[in-house]
């Protein structure tokens, strides 16, 4: 009899410090585990509890899963302070993930905010793996300060790729930062995409997603072409525990990626 709430065991193999508050946890599952980009997992710290995270690694790599986590709460802070080689639990994958097939042949604008670049890294790596299928990938990323930028080494590497265009900004500049300063919406003015065949994918804090969505609509993106990563309190990941309801949907099973078209008539989606 299958126990749908049972996590599989994974060893915490490595911890990579990305920023003062964000670390990437490299997990090696003890049983085969696969996910599609954009799907999420419930990561368990046995005896403490679990929390939902979208992996940040390439789904084509099966033996390991990276999860990039900001230290904000009880479980994340214990994870940040834990040593390697402990056993964690993984349940999932849950949700629908990104519909990559519907992006074929298109200009893909990806807008990330802060640690929101974590799931987007998984998406980018999936897109890079089949780059011929897409017309163009445009990444616009905003972090609070230069020290809050995640995947610092990867960003310039991605920018060098053919058909890939990367621009980064920080909300607050400092002496060491020579790039753009301003909210991520300020680098969306002249995005080099053809609106007739473009989609936009947004992941970041709710307030950032709200203003990016408004900006994208302003630029002429249509609601069905704007993909948003929604978040709410979640427990089961299976559409049973009731927590993540948004309108007629559960974020865990119907999302976590939704088009703005699906959400536009629902109250309080940005809360």
């Amino acid at each position, binding site marked *: 009899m299958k126990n749908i709430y049972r996590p599989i065991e994974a060893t915490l193999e490595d911890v990579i410090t990305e920023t003062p508050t964000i670390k990437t946890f490299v997990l090696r599952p003890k049983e085969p585990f696969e996910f599609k980009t954009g799907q999420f997992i419930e990561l368990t710290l*046995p*005896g403490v509890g*679990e929390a939902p995270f979208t992996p940040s690694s390439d789904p084509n790599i099966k033996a390991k899963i990276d999860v990039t986590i900001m230290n904000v709460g009880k479980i994340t802070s214990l994870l940040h302070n834990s040593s390697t080689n402990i056993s964690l*639990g993984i349940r999932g994958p849950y949700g629908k993930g990104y519909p990559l097939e519907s992006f074929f042949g298109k200009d893909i604008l990806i807008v990330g905010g802060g640690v929101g670049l974590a799931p987007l890294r998984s998406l980018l790596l999936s897109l890079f793996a089949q780059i011929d299928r897409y017309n163009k990938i445009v990444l616009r990323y905003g972090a609070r300060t230069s020290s809050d930028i995640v995947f610092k080494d990867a960003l310039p590497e991605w920018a060098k790729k053919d058909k890939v265009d990367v621009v980064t900004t920080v909300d607050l500049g400092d002496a060491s930062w020579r790039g753009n300063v301003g909210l991520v919406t300020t680098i969306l003015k002249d995005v080099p995409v053809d609106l007739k065949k473009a989609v936009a994918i947004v992941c970041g804090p709710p307030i950032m997603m709200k203003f990016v969505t408004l900006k994208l609509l302003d630029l002429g993106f249509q609601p069905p072409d704007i993909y948003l990563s929604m978040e709410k309190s979640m*427990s089961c990941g299976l559409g049973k525990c009731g927590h993540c309801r948004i309108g*007629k949907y559960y974020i865990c099973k119907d999302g976590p990626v939704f088009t703005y078209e699906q959400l536009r008539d629902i*109250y309080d989606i940005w809360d």
Partner: protein
Amino acid sequence: MFAPAAKEPLGAALEADYCFVRALGDAPLVYNPYRTVEPLKSFFTPAQEKLLDYFLPDKDSNAKQAEKNVIFGVKSCDITGHKVQDYVFLEGVEVDSQYRLRRENTLIISSDCTGFKEVCHCLAWDILPHPAVGFDINLSPLNDGYLAEVGSAAGEDFVQKYDEYFSRAKEPQINARNKKRENFIEQLRKHLLPQNLVRKDSVQKLVKEGYNLNTWQEFMLTCVECGGCNLICDTCHCFLLADRAMPSSQKPGGKENGAHEKLRLWDSCLYANYARVAGGANPLKMRAQRLRNRFMKKFDFFVDNLGVPACCGCGRCIEVCPGKIDIREVLKDLAKKSSPHK
């Protein structure tokens, strides 16, 4: 086997309560004229339940799991409300196999209502006070015995097995049962008519259009956030998966297998932390938002997803509420404050 037992009312003016007890024990079993205090869900998803040990394979506890239960005294509202539980745990992306096993191993012997509590309002949701489907056997009291209606293959097997207790019902007996039912429906209708309750088909529109009304603030004034309304509700299903650290174990994530447990606990959307996320953000921070969320779930979400509102009119939430928040009155207030054309 579980069956209702009567609880003495605390005062002469109060209605008697009935509770499910393990049958053939000390408490005398009775025919409950109306629903019990506890919701039917408590047999299938207990309030607190251990789901697993980390990281051990599931124990072969089939002996306990295969335990067969018979529940007497289930009412029409319970059966209708329980459809929501079935939808949650038996459908969707994954089936909860523990729930399914309990469901398969439980014989539901329902019975017609022959009385009602003040809070009963099944008819408002087009639910009759006797079940038509969803039972294994339904009992209708008649003269000195009962008319038994078989509603499933398991019910049929049961009747076959104990056929010395049954004889085929005759036409006049069935007619007498139907007459009795009609009379009772009429009695309940008379009780409900002056209440002027909102109609089932208007309720989704009411909660959606009433989203920004002050009804939510006004009714929430007396809420003490006990969660009783959710926990006692036949349709509420929210739960929380929580971990219990075993005192003997070392630090979290330690190597000693089986040290920690995962539990499932009933949750309540009226609790302050129901929707809180890591870092402290809480989309249901205000109490009124939480009451509204409860109504949106029952009367908007479930109408969209299941085709029916998630309320069976059992009135348990009304009875349990220390703040005297009455689901009927909340809906009536929304109706009153919505545009006069409706």
